[in-house]
């Protein structure tokens, strides 16, 4: 029978270390592509953006200005309006997407003839490229040859051509409509998938107990899909907050800033006016706001999963 002497122990530790070292290196090798990828496309640009935000930077060069870009923004009434407008844009658009998504999913989940066809018909706004969808809406909103203005005139609701994107209030809500049109299908499909995951037995048990349609929806469907509702609400909020293409194609942030959200403002400042430092400061503020959103998202998701997720 072999015995391990005390003298052998250090040698074994060395051997173990020799074995462990290549393993650690192998592990690093495996994650290296991802680490390099993240470093190049996320970490470095983020660090560069933060650095730029402390500079007065344009095509002519760079100059250290410290927190000046941030203090300027803190004192800018226009920037405050943009932040408020961005939140208003986000809450209104996300609220509508969730409500319409919930109604749409409920209808698509109902046992109606041709349900499969309706499910397919929901997809186009989401499937077709955003630019093409936006150009379609651009034409619809046109006062002279747009369908909406034409229909309203035909039914006598307006007297003459109405340019939806030419006025401050109508441009903002028109952009909201387009954003909701593009964003609702995905919300609908997620809600539909969640609804289909709810056991049919739960509804039948409730039906046998005398629960009506609305009661079942309120007491079974909503709580059962609540984790998905919360996930979609917060993800949709982040996406809507950052929604750029729709506004840019429809109004480029106009008229007179009526549709300028933080992301559009950042683009206009940094790329349109070549004020890279000021643009970077705005971008950093967006990152901070979205980080707060992400924390809220995780906090609510955990809470909701604890409340509703236990199966």
């Amino acid at each position: 029978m072999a015995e391990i002497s005390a003298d052998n122990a250090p040698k074994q530790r060395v051997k173990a270390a020799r074995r462990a070292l290549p393993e650690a290196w192998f592990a690093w090798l495996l994650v290296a592509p991802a680490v390099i990828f993240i470093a190049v496309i996320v970490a470095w640009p983020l660090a560069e953006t933060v650095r730029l935000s402390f500079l007065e930077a344009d095509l002519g060069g760079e100059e250290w200005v410290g927190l000046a870009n941030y203090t300027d923004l803190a004192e800018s009434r226009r920037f405050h309006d943009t932040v408020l407008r961005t939140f208003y844009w986000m809450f209104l658009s996300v609220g509508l997407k969730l409500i319409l998504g919930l109604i749409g999913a409920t209808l698509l989940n109902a046992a109606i003839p041709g349900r499969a066809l309706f499910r397919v018909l929901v997809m186009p706004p989401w499937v077709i490229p955003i630019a093409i969808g936006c150009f379609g809406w651009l034409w619809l909103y046109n006062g002279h040859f747009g369908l909406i203005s034409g229909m309203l005139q035909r039914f006598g609701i307006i007297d003459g051509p109405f340019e939806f994107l030419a006025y401050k209030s109508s441009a903002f809500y028109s952009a909201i409509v387009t954003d909701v049109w593009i964003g609702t299908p995905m919300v609908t499909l997620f809600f539909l998938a969640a609804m289909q995951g709810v056991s049919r037995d739960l509804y039948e048990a409730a039906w046998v107990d005398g629960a009506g349609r609305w009661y079942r929806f309120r007491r079974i469907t909503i709580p059962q899909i609540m984790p998905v509702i919360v996930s979609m609400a917060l993800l949709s909020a982040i996406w809507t907050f950052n929604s750029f293409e729709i506004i840019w194609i429809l109004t480029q942030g106009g008229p007179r800033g009526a549709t300028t959200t933080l992301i559009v403002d950042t683009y206009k400042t940094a790329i349109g006016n070549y004020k890279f430092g000021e643009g970077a400061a705005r971008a950093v503020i967006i990152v901070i706001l979205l980080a707060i959103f992400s924390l809220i998202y995780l906090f609510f998701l955990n809470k909701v999963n604890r409340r509703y997720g236990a199966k």
Partner: protein
Amino acid sequence: MATLNLDHISKSFGPAQVLHDIDLAIRDKEFVVFVGPSGCGKSTLLRIIAGLEEATSGRIVIDGADVSTAHPVERGISMVFQSYALYPHLSVFENIAFPLHVQKMPKAEMKTRVQRAAEILQLTDKLHLKPGQLSGGQRQRVAIGRSIVREPKVFLFDEPLSNLDAALRGDMRVELSQLHRQLSATMVYVTHDQIEAMTMADRIVVLNNGRVEQFGTPMELYHHPATKFVAGFIGQPNMNLVPGVIADLDGSGAAVDLDGGGRLVLPVDTNGAAKGDRVEVGIRPEDLDLGTGLDLSVRVIERLGGVTLAYGTVGRDVRFCASLDGVAPAREGENLGLAVDPAACHLFDASGRVMRRKSAPAFSA
């Protein structure tokens, strides 16, 4: 409580007819079990009683009132589902109180009823928990509690023990039987498990391909199966069926020549049978003893302690099983002599209908 009458119920899904003219009268406070293989229509029949499916034709009558088109609540039934159908986001209390909440019952009365149900089902200390925190048996009890608080006329159970492990299923069978006695309720119970049917039922409905094969007490079904199907379905291990031909008939019974050789004279009612008719002799494995009569070519032996099951073939390669004493000297690969008591045998005609036995245990009459 209440009587339940199924009056010529038929049900079709498109061109497929799944229930054929089901006609049953279930008595007050009776525990009736629908049993049959998968796809026989037993769950569909239960769902029709519950109001979850509509019968294509026929009537459901509860306590003399035709409830065929009534809402489940108006029928006075409650149902326990195979999956328990508990609301995962609600506590045990809220789950049990759910039907009362729907009825907008005053909170004090709701609490009293839930407490009473919880006491019956030993759930008093679990009322604050969520279903996810309970064991399978406890979840099933919560589902039953939800039924109890409704104080229905008829309780319906759709394979409620199928999701439980074997040991727990045995315990729950006893609990359900006790509950039936305690509540003195009319209960209809669906299962594919013949042991559940035999142990719990006052009467059993055996369904096959949407038709009632037989409706009777467990002992009637065991000792006087009306058809070959019932004979094969009730009893564990399954009844052996040995083909043969009627060699002789007289007032006392029929002499049957078995295909593999040998003759059995069976004391059965042979009304309508004729010499030369093809028949099958049904022999329950537990009615066999070591002796002479049949030669079993043993292929597999299962020793369960108290009994030994010997599987093999007899005659012209007919599959056969004998349930013998635990220490029976049976060995795989050898032949085993078996003694058959003709009085314990069943005889089925070519259509599978039984020729009624003249002698059978007294309690089965």
